[in-house]
């Protein structure tokens, strides 16, 4: 092949023209450095904030001369995390450099779900999306577009959607997480709890955790505060059917029967009131409804609660005494993910009332108050008045959040086209199939759409169904909106700034929103020229510019640093009465119980277990399973099962089984973890596994999915949140249900009321059970 031009041309005069044409062809992947270029700068440390979960700890990105992120450290000046960073935070670079990440805008060329796409330019992608949105708005109204955001990165697009005119914006932080807690506390104290939960770890003498999983739900700052409180000698009561990380540190572990928490809370109130242990002055001065409460809990004795919860009455009494002894420095943690049984707002109320009886709301050692931080919003055109919501927030569910919306309500509305058709979804940094229960219904709702857009970092399962995929830059590659933390004793603002350049053609959220706005004629909602201008404006009231805080990434606002009530002045709570409402007339007016009542759940059918799920310190939701480092630490989830039960059933630690739920839905295989540390009625797995997108090379089909076993929910009538711990599973081994004396399959029973959206045995069936020919009546 070492040929001369003459030889080459001899091979065909036809080739001569080819040479000429090819020599003028343009390729431009490489460019010369400018003259005088002396090489790149040395390694830099760039501060920003993490997004491997939602806590947004302070980070320092170490970048080499090529602009490559080498490692991530904690930012030592961060007021809550003080330089600490969890496993996920340390692994963030592996998400940025994940070969599976979304790289270019993609347009679907095959059928929905087929996963066949064509790379398109951003112009083509945004023009396609906005043309569709305009048509849908014209034909069906702006409210026919549903927006599912998550995180501060989605704020610019959310701003755009409000400008577009849709009221249908919903994220799972409310209905699938903490919404019912906030409803309960707001009805009682007039304030939401917010994030991070403002428990005064620094001054508390006794911490009470009910469904709080510090150590598994890892916020580095809160872990640190918790550890310091334990080291300082603060006591800890943990109520949990499972011997959690926090339970391992507890002075009292109360492994109650799942679903009986409210009975325990009422019994504690009984003891505090009838033994005169509560904070009388605080209640007298600041609360209403004490007499009704006293009457209400009269029969809720420790013996009564012992019967229901399965806990010894003496333990209930002892722990109530501990609270009475330490009040008001008792920190009842409000909990985080509380969407359990569908009665969750009332349980949140019960926790808030307990806090009130202890006199610890707005007091040192209890729950401290949020502070203000001045960070003005950039001037923008006024949003149009939106039409009625489709998700039921404020109507069907009177206390549903109008800000965060009700995701499942929006899915229902889309699925049933009631109260009106929803024709487009834009899903932004949210994983609608994994985060909202009953994924089949979600997929059926997607089928009804004329436009389904996914803005994401990785090709999650929902990506398979998208008409258009927009690749967002990772948190390490972009500016985001200013992150203000009001639930810190000294409130602060933190910036997210690019540590590395966006890879491929991924773009930051602010750019995507601004460019979309231009095409929708909504430029006046984004009147700033650059993101730097925008952030400068927001920081202006704090007396700083972006440039001035780029070296630290943080600015504290210490103008009014006392986060407790000043009892020397009159205090007005933001409730209807201006007082703490132990009895809620508002609830009464809406036809709900004005004081929480214990209502038993459905019994667990014999041979089945109540399915509980939760967090791991290694993974966040269904978001991090494809991260190479985190996958290495925890590639699969496993199933906690009580050791006594397991022994009776002949199960062996570490063996693989499948689960079948009450509707006959089978899980993929999962490994057993046999432990005395879980209530015999319950089994537990970490959420987010068995990713069903084959585009995720590491995460695909690892472990079992809890979400896919959630074919049923109990919806909280106050908040609209989904109680998800109402599904029952039985163990399937080698394709057959494990035999339990006297047990029968409940599949047929439940199928009578099975919703049409739930398939019969639809889920991925593992090879071992595919040909088992299992009878529905089973054992």
């Amino acid at each position, binding site marked *: 092949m070492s040929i*001369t031009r003459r030889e*080459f041309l001899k091979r065909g005069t036809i080739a001569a023209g080819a040479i000429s044409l090819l020599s003028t062809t343009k390729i431009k992947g490489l460019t010369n450095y400018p003259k005088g270029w002396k090489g790149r700068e040395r390694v830099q440390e760039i501060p920003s904030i993490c997004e491997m979960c939602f806590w947004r700890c302070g980070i320092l990105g170490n970048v080499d001369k*090529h602009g490559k992120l080498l490692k991530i450290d904690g930012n030592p000046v961060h007021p809550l995390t003080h330089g600490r960073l969890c496993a996920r935070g340390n692994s963030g670079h592996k998400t940025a*450099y994940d070969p*599976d990440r979304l790289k270019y805008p993609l347009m679907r060329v095959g059928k929905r779900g087929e996963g066949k*796409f064509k790379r398109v330019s951003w112009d083509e992608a945004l023009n396609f999306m906005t043309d569709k949105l305009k048509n849908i708005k014209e034909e069906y109204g702006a409210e026919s577009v549903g927006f599912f955001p998550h995180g501060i990165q989605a704020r610019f697009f959310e701003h755009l959607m409000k400008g577009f005119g849709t009221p249908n914006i919903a994220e799972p932080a409310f209905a699938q997480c903490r919404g019912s807690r906030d409803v309960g506390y707001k009805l009682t104290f007039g304030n939401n709890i917010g994030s991070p939960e403002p428990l005064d770890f620094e001054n508390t003498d006794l911490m009470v955790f009910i469904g709080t999983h510090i150590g598994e739900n890892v916020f580095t700052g809160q872990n640190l505060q918790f550890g310091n409180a334990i080291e300082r000698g603060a006591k800890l009561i943990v109520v949990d059917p499972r011997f959690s990380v926090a339970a391992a540190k507890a002075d009292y572990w109360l492994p109650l029967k799942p679903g009986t928490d409210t009975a325990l809370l009422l019994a504690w109130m009984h003891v505090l009131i009838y033994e005169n242990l509560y904070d009388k002055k605080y209640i007298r001065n600041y609360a209403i409804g004490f007499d009704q409460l006293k009457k209400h809990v009269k029969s809720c004795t420790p013996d009564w609660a012992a019967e229901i919860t399965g806990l010894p009455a003496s333990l209930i009494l002892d722990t109530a005494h501990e609270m009475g002894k330490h009040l008001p420095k008792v920190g009842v943690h409000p909990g985080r993910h509380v969407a359990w049984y569908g009665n969750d707002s009332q349980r949140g109320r019960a926790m808030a009332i307990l806090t009130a009886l202890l006199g610890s709301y707005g007091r040192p050692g209890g729950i401290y108050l949020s502070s203000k931080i001045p960070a003005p919003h950039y001037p923008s055109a006024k949003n149009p008045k939106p039409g009625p919501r489709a998700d039921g927030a404020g109507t069907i569910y009177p206390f549903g959040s109008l800000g965060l919306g009700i995701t499942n309500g929006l899915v229902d509305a889309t699925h049933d086209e009631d109260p009106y058709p929803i024709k487009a979804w834009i899903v932004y940094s949210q994983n609608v199939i994994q985060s909202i229960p009953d994924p089949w219904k979600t997929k059926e709702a997607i089928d009804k759409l004329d436009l389904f857009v996914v803005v994401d970092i990785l090709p999650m399962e929902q990506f398979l169904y998208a008409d258009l995929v927009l690749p967002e830059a990772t948190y390490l590659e972009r500016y985001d909106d200013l992150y203000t933390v009001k639930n810190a004793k000294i409130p602060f603002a933190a910036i997210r700034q690019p540590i590395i350049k966006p890879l491929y053609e991924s773009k930051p959220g602010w750019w995507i929103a601004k460019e979309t706005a231009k095409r929708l004629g909504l430029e006046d909602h984004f009147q700033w020229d650059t993101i730097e201008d925008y952030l400068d404006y927001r920081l202006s009231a704090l007396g700083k510019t972006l440039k001035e805080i780029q070296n630290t990434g943080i600015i504290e606002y210490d103008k009014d640093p006392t986060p407790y009530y000043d009892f020397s002045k009159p205090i007005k709570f933001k409730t209807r009465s201006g007082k703490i409402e132990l009895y809620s007339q508002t609830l009464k007016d809406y036809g709900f119980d004005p004081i929480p009542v214990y209502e038993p759940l459905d019994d667990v059918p014999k041979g089945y277990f109540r399915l509980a799920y939760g967090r791991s310190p290694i993974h966040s939701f269904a978001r991090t399973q494809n991260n190479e480092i985190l996958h290495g630490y925890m590639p699969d989830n496993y199933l906690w099962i009580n050791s006594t039960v397991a022994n009776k059933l002949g199960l062996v630690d570490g063996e693989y089984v499948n689960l079948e739920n009450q509707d006959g839905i089978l899980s993929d295989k999962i490994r057993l973890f046999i432990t005395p540390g879980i209530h015999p009625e319950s089994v537990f797995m970490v959420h987010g596994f068995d990713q069903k997108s084959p*585009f*995720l090379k590491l995460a*695909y089909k690892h472990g079992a999915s809890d979400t896919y076993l959630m074919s049923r929910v109990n919806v909280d009538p106050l908040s609209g949140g989904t109680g998800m711990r109402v599904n029952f599973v039985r163990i399937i081994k080698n394709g057959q249900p494990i035999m339990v004396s006297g047990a029968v399959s409940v599949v047929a029973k439940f199928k009578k009321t099975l919703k049409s959206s739930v398939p019969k045995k639809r889920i991925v069936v593992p090879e071992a059970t595919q040909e088992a020919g299992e009878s529905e009546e089973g054992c």
Partner: protein
Amino acid sequence: MQENIRNISFKTFAKLCYYPDQELADLLFDDVITRFLSALEIENSNINQLTSWLKTFKSKEELLETLQVEYTHLFITSFPSLHAPMFKSFYYENEILGMSTEKVMDIYDKFNFHVSDDMAEPPDNLAIMLEFVYRLSELENTYEDQISFVKNEILSWIEQLEEKINEAAEIPFYPFIINTIIHYLKNDVTQYEIKLAGAKL
């Protein structure tokens, strides 16, 4: 003259490995590239088969759409999973911008090149690496550097890429292209080594 043919070869291969654009579709549809490749007489290269396949397209637009969908399928994202990442560090470190990419960037730096600001692919993408050899071939006294780069930075992983392309391709285009490039590169290195051996003798 020999160098001129050689640098056009590298330029053409780079062009074939970038995301297909209208210009590439025109060059293929009008037989410009096939004529050029045919004249190169690359061993095992069944150029007639490619020519016949290209003749099945009625328009340049149809050809472009087919190439873009296939490129997306093989190299960007595809069902059931990304088949054939076209960058070196995937094969060495299973990540974007791995250590091996940094080595490539160091070499670019040495010759005063960097990846263009509007180029979205990582520096060790095959197309950029082939373009680099083309750029070097336009500079004097870089022949040994070109060969070293081809040998150490491209031939060290390109056959793994070929294997993946062959497994997943839905049209014959990219298996042909990658096979042609591999044969050309191997022959290029062999020619150099023969020349070097001759010089030593």
